């Protein structure tokens, strides 16, 4: 008998998923074809804001092959508006999956056509006549807050939420300050994610059992079914959601539940035939979900004589697009990282969110935190330049100190572990900091602009849904949990099911590593089920894949289930082998994985154990009848409901950190920013699988570089989205990626059983880092990087036409000491 004898967690095990994915054997939602399946096509609004004066579907319905059509007024009779998370008045918003009487963003679904083929559905959609009466659009969140043109009359205001987050003694800190830096306005741009696979939904409302079945790629199904159940007036247990392989989500696929509702209603109207909707790329760009756009106004920063930040006061306005949907959770999620990686204790943030006539937002890799972290990094760099303190020294003076962990932030969050100075040291070493500083000076002599920027950021994982009660005290959510099941099937195979729905994060592999360690067998001996299925009964209301949490919540659940299975197996084996439980050891023998009595050498393999429980149960004594070898475990995060008035409490369990450094040159003739060198250093605590972690670091880095330099959702003044195809919205590819030097440290988290921290979102570190590098390159020209998106055009407008980034209009330094 031999066991591995050492931990599988931490080993660079090749991903189990690759075997099928690299051989083209993955199963994605659009691969599914069903008997009598119909196809759905949406008719979408060309207007950003307009009344619908007439819809005529008769011509579409007369087209051979068209089975049915759906319009908003028709479905309004059969469904409830979707649940709103916001308190009143925004809670009064009536959100339906098809527009009822007005449209609020370009691309909003107005009608649906269901046909025998996708091509006929396309043709049918062309025949739907819709007449509109254009209304004044609002595409700027600050303007929206004036309520000059209201999107949702039932709410009576465009303001979704406002709250003041104030901690410490802000006034005193400003009175005591040596320096006060005033920053008029900073702006974080709107961008999205561009998963290879767009949204795909197959929905069937089966009249035989009145159940609704979904095969789709929604990435947070347990959230979706809560919304769908109330909306469709169907008991939640009658909604089954199945996902398989998913070609990327990055959070964006969380908010596909409106389209899921339409597919179910279409199926019901079509007599229960399954309905497939495959989103086009342009639909995805205009109307799936975008990341939040945020404006930072009237920022004041107090600093002492050494450049240590003592207080920040600011006003933030978030743009959530036309419908809140997952919002206003973004109004509070940023506060998981309230001080970023910095030590200041006094702060006041006045936070508002508004609806605008743009695509609704949704969670997007780094959701809500990245905007705030970018703001803090801009503050740090602008202050460093103002006080003529090198950017690395500025950070070292302000970082939370290593000995302060676990560190309680001013708003009560507990940073579990970290070592930011060490990460900076490693990053500087990898990039050759001093060498680049010298080359930067040499380049300056030649009239070339090179900038070196640092971005230090956090990836908060496993969130406390109790934070929803800060924005709405009546919200029925708090804590966090995840489920898993671990069993021996009838023939003794170890089968694991989890409540997540991975999109490339390697959950099958890492779950197998965890179980392999518990049972002391090879991970290849463990089958981890692909995808998500409500009928596996391992999900909780929080199950899905989002918010950097699987390594903590998912694997804790898997670990708990495996421990329960192990205990049952040991108890059963002790009976069969006529020994005590303490005498039993786990390992692998000549007949596969087995349990052995150390004292006698007798053993029983997994098949033998499973046989007794499943098909030979008469041999079981009554005291062991409770053994099932089919163990479900629900892991719950140790959270409390935060103080809703003070907005204080633990909002996240783990805090992975990232420190990136970029060297960028702005080409003198073209103004194209070129990355000359790039380093990413990561700390996600105990690493479960190094290649998977490294891959996610590269992925998040690519995503952030794309967002910083290439990807921007541009709207014109009347709400036309000008970047609805990959001709104009240019996603980053391998061809645009610089070579990234990777480093890491491990500061194990005391908040997870393994020491791991959730990771994968990367805190959008490249956006902060690239802004910092461009700032470094251009500060001597009197330019402030005040926007998170920078390309050749914006740099030209800053340097040559001097339309943007004017230092004198943005920043003002007060010396009080």
């Amino acid at each position, binding site marked *: 008998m031999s066991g591995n004898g050492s931990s599988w967690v931490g080993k660079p095990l090749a991903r189990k998923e690759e075997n099928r994915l690299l051989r083209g054997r993955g199963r994605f939602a659009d691969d599914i074809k069903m008997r009598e399946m119909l196809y759905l096509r949406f008719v979408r*609004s*060309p*207007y*950003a804001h307009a009344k619908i004066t007439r819809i005529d579907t008769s011509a579409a319905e007369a087209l051979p092959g068209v089975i049915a059509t759906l319009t908003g007024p028709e479905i309004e009779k059969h469904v409830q508006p979707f649940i709103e998370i916001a308190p009143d008045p925004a809670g009064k918003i009536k959100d339906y999956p098809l527009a009822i009487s007005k449209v609020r963003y*370009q691309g909003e679904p107005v009608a649906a056509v269901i046909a025998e083929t996708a091509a006929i559905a396309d043709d049918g959609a*062309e025949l739907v006549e*819709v007449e*509109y009466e*254009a209304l004044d659009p609002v595409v700027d969140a600050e303007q929206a807050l004036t309520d000059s043109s209201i999107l949702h009359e039932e709410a009576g205001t465009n303001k979704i939420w406002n709250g003041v987050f104030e901690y410490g003694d802000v006034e005193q800190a400003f009175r005591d300050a040596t320096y006060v830096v005033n920053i008029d306005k900073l702006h974080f741009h709107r961008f999205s994610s561009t998963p290879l696979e767009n949204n795909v939904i197959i929905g069937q409302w089966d009249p035989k059992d009145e159940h609704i079945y979904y095969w789709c790629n929604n990435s947070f199904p347990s959230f979706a079914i809560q919304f769908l159940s109330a909306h469709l007036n169907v008991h939640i247990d009658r909604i089954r959601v199945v996902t398989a392989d998913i070609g990327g989500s990055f959070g964006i696929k969380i908010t596909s539940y409106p389209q899921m509702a339409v597919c179910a209603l279409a199926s019901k109207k079509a007599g229960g035939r399954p309905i497939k909707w495959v989103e086009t790329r*342009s639909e995805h760009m*205009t109307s799936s979900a975008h990341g939040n756009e945020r404006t930072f106004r009237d920022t004041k920063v107090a600093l002492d004589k050494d450049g240590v930040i003592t207080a920040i006061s600011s006003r933030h306005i978030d743009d959530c697009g036309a419908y809140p949907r997952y919002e206003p959770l973004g109004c509070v999620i940023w506060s998981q990282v309230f001080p970023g990686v910095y030590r200041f204790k006094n702060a006041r943030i006045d936070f508002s969110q508004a609806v605008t006539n743009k695509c609704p937002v949704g969670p997007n890799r780094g959701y809500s935190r990245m905007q705030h972290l970018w703001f803090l990094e801009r503050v740090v760099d602008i202050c460093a330049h103002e006080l003529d303190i090198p950017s690395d020294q500025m950070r070292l003076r302000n970082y939370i100190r290593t000995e302060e962990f676990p560190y309680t932030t001013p708003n009560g969050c507990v940073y579990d572990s970290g070592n930011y100075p060490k990460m900076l040291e490693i990053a500087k070493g990898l990039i050759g900091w001093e060498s680049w500083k010298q080359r930067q000076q040499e380049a300056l002599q030649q009239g070339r602009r090179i900038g070196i920027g640092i971005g230090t950021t956090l990836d908060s994982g496993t969130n406390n849904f109790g934070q929803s009660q800060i924005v709405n005290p009546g919200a029925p959510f708090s804590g966090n949990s995840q489920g898993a099941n671990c069993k021996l099937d009838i023939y003794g195979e170890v089968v694991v099911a989890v409540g997540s729905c991975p999109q490339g994060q390697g959950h099958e592999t890492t779950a197998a590593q965890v179980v392999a360690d518990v049972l002391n067998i090879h991970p290849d001996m463990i089958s981890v089920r692909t995808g998500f299925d409500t009928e596996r009964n391992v999900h909780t209301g929080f199950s899905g894949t989002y918010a950097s949490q699987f390594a903590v919540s998912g694997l804790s659940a898997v670990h708990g289930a495996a421990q329960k299975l192990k205990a049952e197996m040991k108890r059963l084996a002790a009976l069969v082998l006529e020994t005590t439980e303490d005498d039993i050891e786990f390992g692998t023998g000549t007949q596969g994985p087995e349990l052995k009595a150390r004292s006698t050498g007798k053993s029983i393999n997994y098949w033998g154990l499973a046989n007794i429980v499943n098909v030979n149960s008469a041999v079981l004594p009554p005291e062991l009848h409770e053994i099932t070898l089919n163990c479900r475990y629900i892991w719950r995060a140790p959270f409390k409901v935060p103080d809703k008035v003070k907005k204080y409490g633990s909002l996240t369990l783990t805090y992975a950190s990232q420190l990136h450094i970029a060297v960028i040159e702005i080409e003198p003739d073209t103004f194209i920013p070129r990355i000359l060198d790039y380093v990413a250093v990561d700390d996600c605590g105990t690493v479960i699988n190094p290649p998977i972690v490294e891959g996610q670091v590269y992925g998040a880095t690519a995503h952030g570089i794309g967002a910083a330099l290439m990807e921007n959702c541009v709207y*014109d*003044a*009347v709400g*036309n*989205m*000008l*970047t*609805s*195809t990959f*001709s*104009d919205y240019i996603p980053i590819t391998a061809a645009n990626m610089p070579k990234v030097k990777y480093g890491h440290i491990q500061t194990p988290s005391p908040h997870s059983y393994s020491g791991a921290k959730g990771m994968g979102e990367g805190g959008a570190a490249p956006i902060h880092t690239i802004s910092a590098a461009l700032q470094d390159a251009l500060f001597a020209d009197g330019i402030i990087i005040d926007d998170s998106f920078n390309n050749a055009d914006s740099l030209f407008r800053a340097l040559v036409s001097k339309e943007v980034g004017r230092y004198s209009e943005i920043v003002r330094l007060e010396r009080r000491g």
Partner: protein
Amino acid sequence: MPIRFNGEFEVKRTPEEVYDFLTDPSKFAPLLPEYQGMSVQDPTHFTVKVNVGVSYIKGVADVKMELTQSDRPKRAEYKGQGSVAGGNVSLVAGFDLAPATEGTKVVWQGEAQVFGRLTSVAGGLLEPLGRKQLQKLIDGLQAALANQAPKTQEMST
């Protein structure tokens, strides 16, 4: 963004003759670029069919026109709204008429607004395409009225 156009020309016709021409759909509508046909609902409402094509988006747009201002012989204004695959179009075209030495001075203003996917696909092509089409309309209008070339032509956005 709205695309705005304006300009002026003179024709050797009286203001009344020009006005009557402009407000007669059967005379005015065929001058619209890519005109395919029309149907008249009443003296102030008519629908024209025009070909629209930008890149791979091609089709026939039904543009509903309304004579919204009619002050004979000083001013006529049309408003129109139409839809085509990938977008909607709205337009306003006004004509101010004044007696001139040799006939009538026509001062015209126009504004076109395009909504929908067409704006994204066509991008920067929209404005030059719009200018080109409008030039055709004005040229046709002048030719039909007096066979005279325009004196000035200005366009701005």
